[in-house]
């Protein structure tokens, strides 16, 4: 062998070329070891993340029954106190008192019927007339919850300790299904409680059905764009990122359609729609949706912390420059026409995506850029919390026809 290698090249017939075994470079080994270590760490990390995620969801779930198990007192403070006040005193000239109200003292059916359908007209409580707009809680409270709430209200404010059975609510819900808000105390008294009469009369303002041309826009669309109802639903109730329109101020809706046109609110699909509408049609559509009353179909869906959302909406975080939502969007987030839309019962995905859009600049049509700074001060978890909380609120009741003229400007 030695002679073969050292002598002149005379390749052997049997020689097989081969490579010598070269050891793997140390560097590669080190990288392999480091990667393996990383893998192990990731495995632990991931299993921990899974455990945390499951625990958090279990917590959320554990919270939810607590919410639906809420006793009458907490239902009252969460659902009634923002308007009727924690002491049940109401608000002078706007919200009737619960304390000493004959509507609570009489038959239990009366408060149940009010909660189920809301009120859309004047009522007289303790010799004062209130031009009332109360939301319907039918879509946000279960029969059991309404029963607990009414029992609590009657015991606390009318000294009637006898509890109300959920069956009564169920029966009444079936009986009253599909009705719109009570046309003031008059209709209530006539239907359920004659002893509450006399109630202020309510001349049913002829809620002019929108003209046929507007209804065609809503239901069939135009040559160049789609029917409103094909996305926003037959009642304007929306879904996910498609906003609920029912009950939004007419002027606000018309202004949004203009924003799609001038680009201050970016949404290509809506821009197509807005381009196909005349100014009169935009105003007419605003008027139409402002007067629609639709039950809430929104529900918390972003996994937000509802208690945190409630705090942000009702109290704000002043040292971060976040005023409470309700300080401009009105108590119970019903909105203040025409500038400030109602937020109640809006779909969480829509609310959160709009808050994100204020930050990114996709949407920049707030009056005085009021929303821009507020949205920037909210972080991702805040946005989800606020959006989820607002979805638990009852929908905006319908404003009387007199506001229509104001909005139109």
């Amino acid at each position, binding site marked *: 062998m030695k002679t073969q290698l050292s002598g002149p090249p005379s390749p052997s017939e049997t020689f097989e070329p081969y490579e010598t075994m070269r050891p793997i470079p140390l560097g590669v080994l080190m990288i392999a070891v480091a990667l393996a270590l990383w893998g192990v760490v990731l495995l632990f990390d*991931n299993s921990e*993340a*899974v455990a*945390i*995620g*499951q625990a*958090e*969801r*279990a917590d*959320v*779930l554990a919270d939810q029954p607590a919410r639906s198990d809420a006793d009458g007192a907490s239902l009252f403070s969460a659902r009634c106190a923002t308007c009727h006040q924690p002491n049940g005193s109401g608000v002078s000239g706007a919200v009737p008192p619960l304390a000493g109200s004959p509507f609570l003292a009489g038959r239990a059916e009366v408060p149940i019927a009010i909660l189920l359908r809301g009120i859309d007209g004047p009522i007289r409580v303790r010799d004062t007339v209130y031009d009332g707009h109360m939301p319907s809680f039918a879509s946000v409270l279960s029969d059991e919850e309404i029963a607990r709430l009414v029992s609590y209200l009657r015991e606390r404010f009318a000294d009637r300790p006898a509890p109300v059975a959920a069956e009564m609510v169920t029966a009444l819900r079936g009986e009253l299904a599909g009705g719109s808000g009570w046309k003031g105390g008059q209709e209530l008294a006539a239907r359920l409680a004659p002893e509450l009469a006399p109630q202020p009369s309510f001349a049913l303002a002829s809620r002019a059905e929108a003209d046929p041309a507007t209804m065609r826009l809503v239901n069939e*669309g*135009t*040559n*160049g*764009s*789609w*029917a409103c109802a*094909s*996305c926003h*639903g037959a009642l304007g109730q929306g*879904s*996910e*990122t*498609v906003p609920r329109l029912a009950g939004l101020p007419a002027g606000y809706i018309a202004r949004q359609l203009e924003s799609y046109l001038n680009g201050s609110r970016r949404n*290509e*699909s809506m821009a*197509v729609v807005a*381009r*196909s509408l005349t100014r009169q049609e935009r105003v007419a559509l605003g008027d139409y949706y402002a007067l629609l009353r639709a039950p809430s179909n929104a529900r918390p*869906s*972003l*996994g*937000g*912390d509802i208690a*945190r959302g409630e705090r942000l909406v009702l109290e704000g975080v002043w040292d971060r420059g976040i005023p409470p939502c309700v300080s401009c969007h009105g108590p119970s987030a019903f909105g203040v026409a025409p500038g400030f839309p109602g937020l109640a019962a809006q779909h969480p*995905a*829509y609310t*959160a*995506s709009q808050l*994100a859009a204020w930050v990114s600049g996709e949407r920049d049509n707030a009056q005085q850029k009021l929303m821009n700074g507020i949205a920037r001060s909210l972080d*991702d*978890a805040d*946005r*989800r*919390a606020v959006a989820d909380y607002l979805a638990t609120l009852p929908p905006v009741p319908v404003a009387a026809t007199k506001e229509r003229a104001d909005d139109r400007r």
Partner: protein
Amino acid sequence: MNRILPLGVIALGILAFATLMLVIGPAIQIKSMAPTPGLANYSAQELRGREQYVAQGCVYCHSQQPRSADQAPDAERGWGRAAVASDYVYDRPHQLGTMRTGPDLFNVGTRLPSRDWHLTHLYQPRAIFAWSIMPGYPYLFERKSRAGPGDVVVSLPAEHRPAEGVIVAKPAALDLVAYLQGLDHTNPAPARAVRDDGYSERGEPR
């Protein structure tokens, strides 16, 4: 080549191990999984539409798997809650997708419920989004001089309308849109559902 046998054995071993861990194991894990509560099976038309979805290669640009809030702001984009395994029980094969050249479509039926919108968009995406890079699918439509009974006419902005006649949808387009409209996985997922929790961190507000 030397030592083919041990090489082959090792290669097959690795393959078998991978199959066990990535295919057989998960299959056992999800085999008996019930659908997410509220999830409906596809209708016959939706299934035909699903075949169109596969045939047109939608999966190459669109995923069907919203991520959790820890991973991506999908919920705030309106793409819906994070998908869980039981959302896919009726999907054979699933259309998860790996590319997000376009948006996730797992809940497109709830955020874009309009049939007419989808028809316009499929015919010519740039009729709505001037910047869209999605291809149009004009061959799923046909031009007619006038719409016959039962024809579905596509609404188009003036600049995309044919000079004369109307664009009507062929059955394939209607099937595909029915499938897209039916994509709705927004029902709440059970807490114990099998899902990806990749980046959950302790103490992080959710």
